[in-house]
């Protein structure tokens, strides 16, 4: 079981997520991608590209963004906004690291 304290829940360890990669967590109907950058920053986005719902967790992570594997839209990890000429945005969530433990804020998931 996952430890619960307040709305922050433990979802795994930093080392479970590859650098410049992502892993998903599943919460009810939601599939949320947890990204880890080269510099070990963590970000959480709904695993859906605003364009055609492509699974962002499967994209290449670079420069604070992820490139969607379906049609190469580039989405900001921090804001969920599409970059460049494309318009649209993906829901963002809060995730943080305490030591090696990754914590996710459930309060925004409904």
């Amino acid at each position, binding site marked *: 079981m996952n430890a619960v304290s307040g709305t922050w829940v433990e979802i795994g360890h930093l080392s479970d997520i590859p650098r*410049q990669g992502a892993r998903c967590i*599943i919460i009810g109907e939601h599939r949320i991608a947890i990204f880890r*950058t080269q510099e070990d920053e963590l970000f959480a986005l709904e695993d859906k590209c605003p364009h055609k*719902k*492509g699974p962002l967790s*499967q994209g*290449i992570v670079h*420069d604070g963004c992820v490139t969607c594997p379906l049609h190469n839209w580039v989405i900001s990890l921090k804001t969920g906004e599409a970059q460049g000429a494309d318009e649209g945005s993906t829901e963002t969530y809060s995730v943080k690291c305490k030591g090696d433990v990754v914590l996710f804020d459930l309060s925004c998931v409904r």
Partner: protein
Amino acid sequence: MKKKLVIVGNGMAPGRMLEDLLEADSEAYDITIFNAEPRVNYNRLMLSPVLSGEKQYADIITHDDEWYAERNITLHKASPVSAIDRGNKTVSSTNGLQCSYDKLVIATGSNPFIIPVPGNDLNGVLTYRDLDDVEKMIEVAQTGGHAIVIGGGLLGLEAAAGLKAQGMDVTVLHLMPTLMERQLDTAAGYLLEQAFEDLGISVKTKANTHEILGENGSVAAVKLDDGTELPCTMVVMAVGIKPSCDLAQSCGIAVNRGVLVSDDMRTSDPDIFALGECVEHQGQCYGLVAPLYEMATVIADNLLDGTSQYSGSVTATKLKVTGIDLYSAGDFSDGEGREEIVLRDASGGVYKRLVIKDNKIIGAVLYGETADGPWFFDLLKKQADISQMRETLIFGQAYQGGEPLDPLAAVAALPDDAEICGCNGVCKSKITGKITELGLTSLDEVRAHTKASASCGTCTGLVEQLMSLTLGERYNPDAVVPMCGCTDLGHSDVRRLIQAKKLKTIPAVMQALEWKTSNGCAKCRPALNYYLVCDWPDEYADDYQSRFINERVHANIQKDGTYSIVPRMWGGQTSSKELRAIADVVDKFQIPTVKVTGGQRIDMLGIKKEDLPAVWADLGKAGFVSGHAYAKGLRTVKTCVGTDWCRFGTQDSTGLGVRIEKFMWGSWTPAKVKMAVSGCPRNCAEATCKDVGVICVDSGFEIHFAGAAGLDIKGTEVLGLVKTEDEVLEHIVALTQMYREQGHYLERIYKWAKRIGYDEVRTQIMDNAEKRQAYYERFVFSQKFAQVDPWNERVSGKDKHEFQPLAKLNLEAAE
């Protein structure tokens, strides 16, 4: 009567606190210090020079006995405090001393972290924290031998350099892929590793210590998780520190990782302060001296009833190893609204990166040239607006003020005999002269006629500036299409330079070719990854995070996020056993769609990612391997039934197709490769629109190449006629290897062949037996590392994380 102040610990932080306190009011307190070490106060930052022999203990003392005596401070040396009685407000030490206090400062510092592996208590396993440690290290070093330093952070690297200076052979083991990953980005970490190798210190990254092996109670070797054993006479653990908070905890003060303090540096007991490395403030523990000094100043003021607040520190790090200049400060991760300015000077070994947000510096990494570090750090701390000097900011303080520099003017001012290209000894006037004389307008032409920038390429920028100066508006530098926004170099240049400079990792390419971003982008990373896999098949470790998802999970992503898979059917042949296995898998995993492909294979579509390993396991039992339908590599060899059945067949086209496919699957290519073998000129396998095709005829085999039947439609070119199957294989393999070595990433064979000329391909493959043989052998060498079935590897557990969610949560749990 004066109030009594007791300090537990006598490191650098309490030293600074006392100076601040006494300067403000030397009469306020009666001061008593309990020091666990049998010494006065010394500068721990200078332990590294002591270890390397550049300094002695006496040189690094900051407060000697006299200093304490003059100020009437009682210093109990070698007297560790064993208990604090908060009710009676007294402390007692292990050697029986007792002392009462009005205010207490806990400055117990930190302890080195000892990794919990067997053998960590053997003789010769040392830590690196205080002078005792240094003295032990120097003692062991006198006998020479091999030292292993576990931990490639600041402390570990300084220890390694010190031990090397003492004459030992030194190996640094580091768990993470790059050194000092908490202070440096990947690019600088790479340079640092190179510099250590140059000092003769061997560095092993991604090295996880499994066990320390001993002999008669002393260290003999370190064994890694991968089974490697490294013999040694000393092991230094420098993997990190943990705040020392046992004392605080034992008397009931709130602790977490460290002793918890509020902004006024008070612990949960208002009469007790905590200071230094034992402190946890707003979730942060600090191990560098600057933040500790800031805390000291706050406590000194609050001891005198002040209202100072500590608000956390931004830290800067400098590595103290002679000959290596490195500076890092602030936050240098990527993120929204952050921009970076990167300056690389490959020949000078310089890398500088500033991270900018809202026109303010928020992070800086400097390597090779660090003189401007404090200036950048100052701008960072002051949150200065840098928009006015943005263009020249990265060049440092000396370039600020006055007119912005025009790089063209600087080149124009060079004398005619100034050397531009060091590799080929080409001076400025030769380049400008040839441009004018021969009417050269492109960089390639200048390279061809002058040799300037034709070797290592680092002077390319200068040559281009000379062309701009000489040609004016006639020079269009955009004629070479850059690989992506991260570089001005085109694919051909990058490939040439990877070979010429023997670049073998992505960070190495980015540094040597002066990439403008720190980590590349989704365009250049997959390309570089391919070029390196192709050029150094035995040495380069494939970077999966730089691969498109299909190649990472060995299946094809579909529009709804599910995957499709295609097992290999050699030459397009199958059997009842195989078909039954496919039917069973389709039923078992409820695979919604099964489709026959254009390449004579069976495609199963709509498989959930989580199911992939189980699907492959079942297919594997029936003998199936991956069909690489996702790969930039050999996809399919389509065949007709040939002489086995067909009344017109002239050769065994099916057998040849199977043979080619079995020989050539595996190695990556710039783009996908599809082939076909037809048994007669009726061409039922449609070989004349493939990347490579074979048409069997009575007299032998006609080899075709450079066809297309996709975005473009194009019939093949004829390469030539050969007599035997062996010759077919040799020619096709050589052709493919030539394409592998020259093609631009994502460039199909027909585009590559058109770019370099069909005749060039024919000359090298048909007419030059020596070249053909060499290409053939390089392909065979590459296959040694590439012919591993990726599905079987994943059934056996490789990349497990790719196929499982990190966690499944119940939404109600939190409510």
